[in-house]
């Protein structure tokens, strides 16, 4: 098996391998196998709680490190100015295997915790300083605004109390020493409360105060023009400065309580203007100092983050790999003396030598002398399905796998889809121009493969990039079908002489056929003719049926390798042959009739060309007889009766043969005295719970005793599905016609509605002509790319895929396999 090359025809042969890994080399061995990406490990401890597994401690440590790395990534992300992160392929690698591995991990752990501690402390001090700065700013505003209030109120006072001086300052200097008993401040009889409150709360605040104090207050407030940033949420809040004048201690206390409950902040303001000016100066100074400190803290924090950004990717990579390694190690089993780990897993038989080499390499790297031992096991369990793809076939295999993973060693429909899928797409998309556009797009993506793969495209562009080889073939085949349909941006090419000539007359003219036929593709004479659609519809519909029947026949034949490989010759006689006869006797006959009718020169024949649709219907409704005048060939009635009879036999053949053969085998087994398990013996089952009897293996093995009723039902469903499916699937292929018609019509409408208006006999002579052509041309091209290529392309893609999934796969595909998911480090680089 080793000298044969892998093929996509079936899934690879897999073996169940058992590894005996000494504990010292376990970590490095798993790392090597992860880099190789060839082994899928089984969980040998399915009943063990995740918290009781052997390597739980290491995983916890790695999780801590992962949390720290995530914290760094978040912090870097939150910075407004982008911090450069050194990409992985540019970073120095951290060696995590070998004798110094444990040391490296320990170092990494300490580095990460150190950095985190520093970053967190910088963050907290920054937050504290910001809060204090905010308070100081508010205090400054309050001081400024209240100054205005006092001046205003002072103005009023001079009106009322004319014995007042202009400047209250000299009075104050003496007054506040003596006015301990007079809580009235600055010559006013009123006392006040000043502070800031959120703008949205102001009306509520006023109302509450009015009600509580029964109107015995005077309140004034102004907006603060600049908003305050809340550092933790990043929200902007708008605040107002307020000052409330009231009389009496009780009222003031009430005001203070209400203000605090509404979330206002109160600031002590001195009524003395000089003192206020002093406070303002002090506040401004402290604010300046604080802002300097804040700025410096911000700078050093940024430096720290930049340094972290240098190594962040390599840390993320190491942490992810280590986590995967330890999680895999947890799947292993310790042997009796806890010196060796036992692992079980699936690996492709072809790769076993590579795996052994890798294990030996791991032993050398780690410096121990005991290599791990690999041992192949024999098993009846179903292995995972593994199709070895390269970057070209990967896309096609993925879209076919989306329908279902093929059963182990079943014929792989993905192999044939490499060509049939783009071909059926092209039948629906046929246009030389549009095909060229998508071909060029695909070529660009392929040439820029390396760069685009690293760049990390978004989700949508990533999907297109993943399918670049599919798009390449789609484009190439579309150019070919475009040549056949003779359609380039809704115009035709006259590559050869047309078969029709049009005589020179005024009025409607009918083409005359000569001896020559247009050798490749659709004759350009049909383009622009009144009945062009009549001809092309008939042609495309018949082509869809012919291609469809051939595709279905091909898919049906793919059953044969499956039956041969899985040693089921009964299925060939009981399933494949009746299905093939049924399909061919009705629809194969239709295809032959289509081709035959095309090959007859009806102008020289005695009868008119019969309608094939009516012929097919009459074949079923009036078997054996053909209406005179609608005969296609001699002896038609007899042939059709025979074919109908054959199809009729196939239905009971398909329905009965297999269940009968199984029933016969069952009778033979029963007659020899064997009793099936699970029948009767109910009394014993309750008592013995498996202690005294050999219990049969897991349900999917040893199924000699399936319920006969189930087999019959399965076969009935299968028969009905196939026979009805034949008819409905054949008609379903008419979508090839429908979409190609829609595409051609859309293309024509777009041309007629845009460029046809600006192209005339004098477009190129005047400057307006050129400008109009340029603008309209740009619009036409944009609509072509977005509507005709992308939208129609996606539509044709979907329908071609449906044809593969439903019409083709239902003829042979069994499915039910599970995909091979090896431990691989390759995928984690692309995940963020």
């Amino acid at each position, binding site marked *: 098996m080793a000298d044969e*090359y*892998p*093929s996509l*025809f079936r899934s690879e042969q897999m073996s169940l391998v058992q590894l005996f890994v000494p504990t010292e080399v376990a970590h490095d061995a798993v790392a090597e196998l992860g880099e190789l990406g060839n082994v899928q490990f089984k969980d040998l401890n399915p009943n063990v709680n995740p918290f009781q597994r052997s390597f739980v401690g290491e995983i916890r440590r790695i999780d801590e490190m992962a949390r720290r790395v995530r914290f760094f990534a978040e912090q870097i992300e939150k910075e407004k100015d982008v911090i450069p992160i050194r990409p992985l392929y540019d970073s120095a690698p951290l060696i995590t295997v070998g004798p110094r591995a444990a040391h490296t991990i320990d170092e990494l752990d300490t580095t990460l915790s150190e950095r985190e501690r520093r970053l967190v402390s910088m963050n907290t001090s920054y937050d504290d300083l910001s809060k204090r700065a905010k308070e100081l700013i508010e205090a400054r505003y309050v001081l400024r605004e209240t100054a205005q209030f006092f001046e205003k109120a002072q103005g009023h006072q001079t009106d009322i109390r004319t014995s007042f001086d202009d400047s209250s300052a000299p009075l104050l200097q003496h007054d506040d020493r003596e006015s301990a008993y007079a809580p009235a401040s600055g010559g006013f009889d009123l006392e006040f409360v000043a502070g800031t409150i959120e703008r949205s709360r102001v009306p509520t605040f006023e109302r509450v105060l009015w009600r509580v104090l029964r109107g015995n207050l005077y309140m004034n407030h102004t907006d603060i023009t600049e908003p305050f940033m809340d550092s933790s949420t990043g929200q902007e809040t708008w605040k107002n400065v307020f000052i409330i004048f009231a009389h009496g201690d009780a009222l003031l206390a009430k005001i203070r309580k209400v203000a605090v409950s509404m979330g206002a902040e109160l600031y002590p303001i001195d009524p003395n203007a000089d003192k206020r000016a002093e406070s303002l100066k002090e506040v401004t100074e402290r604010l300046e100092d604080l802002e300097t400190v804040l700025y410096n803290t911000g700078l050093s924090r940024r430096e720290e983050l930049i340094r972290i950004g240098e190594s962040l990717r390599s840390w993320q990579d190491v942490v992810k790999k280590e986590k995967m390694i330890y999680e895999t190690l947890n799947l292993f089993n310790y042997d009796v003396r806890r010196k060796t780990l036992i692992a079980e897993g699936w690996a492709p038989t072809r790769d076993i030598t590579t795996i052994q080499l890798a294990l030996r390499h791991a032993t050398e790297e780690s410096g121990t002398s005991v290599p791990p031992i690999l041992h192949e096991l024999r098993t009846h369990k179903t292995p995972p399905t593994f199709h*070895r793809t390269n970057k*070209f*076939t990967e896309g096609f295999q993925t879209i076919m796998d989306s329908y279902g993973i093929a059963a182990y060693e079943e014929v792989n429909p993905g*192999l*044939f889809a*490499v*060509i*049939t899928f783009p*071909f059926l797409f092209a*039948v629906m998309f046929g246009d030389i121009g549009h095909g060229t556009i998508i071909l060029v797009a695909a070529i660009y993506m392929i040439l820029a493969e390396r760069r685009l793969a690293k760049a990390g495209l978004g989700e949508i562009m990533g999907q297109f990039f993943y399918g670049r080889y599919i798009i390449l073939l789609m484009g190439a085949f579309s150019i*070919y*079908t475009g040549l*056949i349909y003779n359609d380039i941006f809704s115009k035709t090419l006259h590559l050869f002489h047309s*078969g*029709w000539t*049009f005589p020179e*007359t*005024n*009025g*409607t*003219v*009918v*083409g*005359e*056929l000569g*001896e*020559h*036929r*247009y*050798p*490749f*593709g*659709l*004759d350009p*004479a*049909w383009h*622009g*003719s*009144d*009945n*062009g659609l*009549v*001809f092309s519809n*008939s*042609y495309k519909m*018949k*082509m869809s049926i*012919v*291609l469809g029947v051939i595709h279905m026949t091909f898919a049906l034949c793919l059953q044969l390798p499956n039956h041969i490989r899985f040693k089921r010759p009964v299925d060939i006689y009981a399933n494949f042959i009746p299905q093939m006869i049924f399909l061919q006797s009705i629809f194969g006959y239709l295809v032959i009739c289509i*081709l035959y009718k*095309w*090959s*007859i*020169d*009806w102008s020289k024949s005695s009868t008119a*060309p019969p309608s094939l649709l009516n012929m097919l219907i009459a074949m079923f409704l009036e078997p054996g007889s053909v209406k005179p005048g609608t005969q296609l060939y001699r002896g038609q009635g007899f042939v059709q009766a025979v074919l109908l009879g054959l199809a009729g036999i196939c239905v009971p053949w398909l329905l009965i043969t297999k269940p009968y053969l199984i029933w016969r085998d069952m009778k033979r087994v029963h007659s020899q005295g064997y009793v099936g398990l699970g029948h009767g013996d109910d009394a014993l089952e309750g008592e013995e719970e498996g202690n005294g009897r050999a219990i049969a293996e897991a349900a999917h093995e040893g199924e000699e005793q399936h319920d006969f009723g189930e087999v019959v039902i399965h076969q009935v469903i299968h028969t009905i599905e196939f026979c009805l499916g034949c008819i409905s699937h054949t008609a379903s292929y008419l979508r090839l016609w429908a979409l190609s018609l829609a595409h051609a019509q859309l293309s024509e409408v777009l041309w007629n509605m845009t460029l046809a208006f600006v192209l005339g006999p004098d477009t190129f002579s005047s400057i307006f002509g050129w400008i109009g052509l340029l603008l309209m041309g740009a619009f036409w091209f944009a609509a072509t790319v977005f509507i005709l290529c992308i939208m129609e392309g996606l539509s044709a893609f979907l329908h071609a895929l449906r044809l593969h999934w439903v019409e083709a796969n239902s003829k042979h595909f069994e499915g039910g396999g599970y995909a091979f998911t090896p431990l691989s480090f390759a995928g984690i680089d692309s995940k963020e």
Partner: protein
Amino acid sequence: MASIFPVILMLLVTAGLMTASAIFVPKGPNQVTIRTALLLTFAACYLMWMITYMAQLHPIISPIKAGKHA
């Protein structure tokens, strides 16, 4: 040249190309893929050409063009 002869000729050409690709694709990890792809491509392209050619061999209707002065 309104005969069925080109159909048969191209059939033989296609069969020849398919046989050549079945035999001469070099051994390697992609032999099966390349071989299948070439066989299917030749077959599909021939089929499509053949259908188009045969549909126009003995057409039942003729193209009608509205005249310039219609």
